[in-house]
């Protein structure tokens, strides 16, 4: 193998698995260290810069970082990254003084359609640069799906108000209750750029017999949740069936429990394991006495005189064809009818752009989705950008934020007369953490603690009021314990070939057997000859240039604890622990000019 190029910004970035997995590339270990030091405001600001909504995401994020967390490969569970983010939001001081000031306007006008996370991120990035940003939303208040679809017992309004407020206070104009019905007329208003962040607002229908006849008691999940959110709906029947296995279904069933649903049942087509809902959301639903029945396909709504009385299901089983594709086939068991008073349909969301006329220069593909460049988020109309669920279909908040940052960068470059497709390199800092012979400016003593549980409110109290937040969040003590579980993966092991005397001290001390001195070879061959098995080819090998004996140093990054013992036991300083910090390129960052090829 060729010697590893650690100067490439992505090499060490990939070692920080959580940050690499985060669509917005939040510097996770950095903010967790700040939490451990009690510097909550600093931790919050690191988050705010990357993901814009730390308090909201700290309660609702889909957490792609946690399955990626190295700790999960070393013991059973990853660090509770998401809930530590909430800690930063809960315990911070007033951070208003740290936010950017509204700046003098530069005369350029940007229209943002939809007041959700994608649009607000664009506005957050562009407003401080002097752009006049106008956000349009059909709802009276900003937040989009964060406000309408996520129940208040998971995400209180106060948190949404605070974090959307930080953005609107940057001099962003918010036009609530103002639905955009025509792209054409918006284009006629001569905005310099338009960003579409209107989400995936349409709940998918379930067209089976009885749908029309029993319509009064059959509700589309996201519409129903929005009605609950705005107080238009405040009760539901005693027996409720929720159809669907995603996070919306989980929100529906838990909301139904709080509005009078005594016997709430979730029914999914697939197996329990394959459900789209996050495992912790399923857990929370089950904890609230909501059974989840699987491998049952709804075939008809049963009704008597226009009144819904139940849903009939066919039992199915999974069969896999030669290509490993799953098919659901009837299991042969007799159909089952579950009686109910109301049904909530949460079987998916769709995009809908009836308001974009065909002659706007915006092309759509055969799935009726706009043709959007996945890097620049520009549509076929060079002034119109898409982001969030509106761009590539339903994902989640953190993806919308990531899209927003990239789209804002594109808009800024477009309106600065620069090439939109050229993406400036991120700024990377690599700093030695050495303080003394065996002292580091980070805590390298590895905690053996298991993941700390987030305290929940008592179920009886939680179920009484739909606005009572269920999760209480970590207290300071629990947060400190959980923060200590972080392995500081951003503190990198950096090897200098010229200093190494091949004494083996690092290989001997390494608790994870990451380091091997051996003859060089092709990657597959090298992976076979390491001190410990190397089962994850997606985890890089760090290979040195040739050493004095002709061998090379090979380090499997997979399960490195970043404990620094290799550097402590190295007599010549050939190993050093250096903190890697990457500043993702946002609109207006003082960017180096070199363009980059990789993500």
């Amino acid at each position, binding site marked *: 193998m060729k010697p590893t190029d650690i100067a490439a910004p992505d090499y060490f970035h990939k070692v920080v698995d959580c940050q690499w997995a985060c669509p917005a590339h939040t510097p996770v270990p950095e903010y967790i260290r700040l939490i451990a030091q009690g510097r909550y405001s600093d931790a919050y600001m690191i988050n705010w810069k990357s993901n814009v909504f730390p308090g909201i995401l700290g309660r609702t994020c889909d957490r792609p970082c946690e399955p990626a967390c190295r700790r999960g490969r070393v013991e059973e569970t990853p660090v509770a990254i998401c809930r530590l983010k909430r800690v930063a939001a809960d315990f911070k001081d007033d951070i208003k003084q740290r936010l950017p000031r509204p700046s003098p306007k530069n005369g350029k006008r940007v229209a943002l359609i939809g007041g959700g996370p994608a649009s607000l991120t664009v506005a957050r990035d562009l407003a401080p640069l002097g752009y006049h940003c106008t956000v349009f939303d059909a709802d009276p208040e900003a937040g989009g799906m964060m406000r309408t679809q996520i129940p208040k017992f998971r995400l209180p309004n106060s948190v949404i108000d605070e974090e959307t407020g930080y953005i609107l206070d940057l001099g962003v104009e918010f036009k609530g209750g103002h639905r955009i019905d025509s792209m054409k007329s918006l284009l006629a208003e001569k905005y310099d750029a338009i960003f579409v962040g209107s989400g995936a607002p349409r709940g998918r229908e379930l067209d089976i017999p009885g749908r029309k006849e029993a319509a009064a008691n059959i509700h589309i999940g996201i519409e129903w949740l929005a009605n609950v959110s705005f107080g238009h709906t405040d009760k539901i029947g005693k027996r409720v069936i929720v159809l669907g296995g995603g996070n919306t279904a989980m929100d529906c069933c838990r909301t139904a429990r709080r509005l009078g649903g005594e016997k709430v049942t979730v029914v999914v087509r697939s197996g329990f394991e394959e459900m789209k809902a996050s495992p912790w959301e399923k857990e929370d639903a089950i904890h609230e006495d909501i059974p989840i029945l699987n491998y049952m396909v709804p075939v008809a709504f049963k009704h008597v005189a226009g009144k819904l009385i139940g849903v009939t299901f066919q039992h199915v089983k999974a069969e896999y064809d030669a290509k490993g594709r799953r098919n659901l086939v009837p299991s042969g068991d007799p159909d089952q009818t579950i009686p109910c008073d109301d049904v909530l349909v949460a079987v998916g969301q769709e995009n809908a752009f009836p308001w974009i006329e065909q002659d706007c220069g915006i092309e759509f593909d055969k799935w009726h989705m706009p043709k959007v460049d996945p890097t620049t988020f520009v549509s076929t109309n060079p002034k119109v950008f898409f982001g969030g669920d509106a761009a590539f279909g339903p994902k989640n908040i953190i993806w919308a934020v990531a899209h927003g940052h990239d789209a804002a960068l594109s808009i800024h470059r477009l309106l600065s007369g620069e090439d939109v497709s050229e993406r400036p390199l991120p700024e990377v800092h690599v700093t030695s953490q050495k303080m003394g012979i065996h002292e580091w400016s980070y805590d390298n*003593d*590895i905690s053996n603690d298991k993941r700390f549980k987030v305290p929940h409110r008592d179920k009886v109290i939680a179920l009484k009021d739909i606005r009572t937040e269920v999760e209480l969040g970590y207290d300071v003590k629990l947060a400190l314990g959980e923060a200590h579980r972080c392995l500081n993966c951003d503190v990198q092991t950096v090897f200098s070939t010229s200093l190494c*005397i091949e004494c083996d001290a690092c290989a001997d001390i390494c*608790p994870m057997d990451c380091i091997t001195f051996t003859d060089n070879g092709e990657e597959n061959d090298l992976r076979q000859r390491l001190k410990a*098995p190397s089962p994850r080819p997606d985890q890089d090998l760090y290979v040195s240039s040739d050493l004095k004996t002709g061998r090379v140093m090979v380090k499997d990054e997979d*399960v490195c*604890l970043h*404990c620094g*013992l290799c550097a402590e036991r190295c007599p010549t300083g050939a190993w050093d622990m250096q903190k890697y910090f990457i500043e993702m390129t946002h609109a207006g960052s003082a960017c180096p000019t070199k363009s980059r090829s990789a993500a």
Partner: protein
Amino acid sequence: MTYIAKPKFHHPGLKKNELGYTHRDYEGKISTLCAGCGHDSITASIIEACYELSIEPHRVAKISGIGCSSKTPDYFLGNSHGFNSVHGRMPSVLTGANLANRDLIYLGVSGDGDSASIGFGQFAHSIRRGVNMTYIVENNGVYGLTKGQFSATADRGSKSKKGVTNTDNAIDLVAIALQLGATFVARSFSGDKTQLVPLIAAAIRHKGASFIDVISPCIAFNNHAGSTKSFDYVREHNDAVNRLDVLVGRDPIAVDYAPGTVQLVEQHDGSRIALRKIDADYDPHDRLGAQTFLAKHAAKGQIVTGLLYVDPDAEDLHEHLNTVETPLNTLEADTLCPGSAVLDKINASLR
């Protein structure tokens, strides 16, 4: 010195030996030696050898004297018996322990000061008695704990860190061990675990006095130009006569040996050593030949490493003394003191 404890986590894919232990289970406390010390590599080699042999830690007694090397038993086999004895007195403590309980595996860990200076006599007598043990000297040629004076194994003409030339002749412990009748004699280098680990494993399986001299560079005081015990010097002058694999039980011999290059040595306990010859003419069963070979190469400044001599049918001290099979420390009082009738009989036989 590292202040944190070595993390308990280990690689999730670590292999386990027959007892279900990983090599991490054979570790001791974290080393307090200087960073990069050769001794730590020997520690790692002992851990690896014991792991590979699936040795039950409680069946091992590790005994040492004084010095950097003698501190190392604290860093391996944390669940074994240990005795950190007086300077140079490891061999007599080990001999006593071995006499009292012949069932344990004895690891004598010593250094060049402990064995070639203050304990030279002790070393000599434990070897010539044929105590069943593995005697490892971690040999760095300097007194590291007292800041780097030449030890008795420092080569004549080699230089100290400050540039002073050694004018005394060196003691070659391997040559002495051969002369005194050790039945397993080897030399290796802390920086060459592929050679050292199987040597330690073979020595542990050997019945009789096994002696391994391990050149172990002292990073702080003896790893400079002019030293003959530095990493660079040893690597340049290392003349390995063979490399070996230890085969326990019915392990098949790996097939990738070129024909005629492997010599099989079956030890007393049925384990086999597959010696891969590097020097085709070297015969590890010829004590006199080994002595001559060593002397010739030493004169040329070469460091001969490998398994230098082995007598697979060796006897040990217990056989010499005709002691009972049962370890003496488990004999009951009525066996140890069979009564006046037996005493009368013995007395009568001597009249």
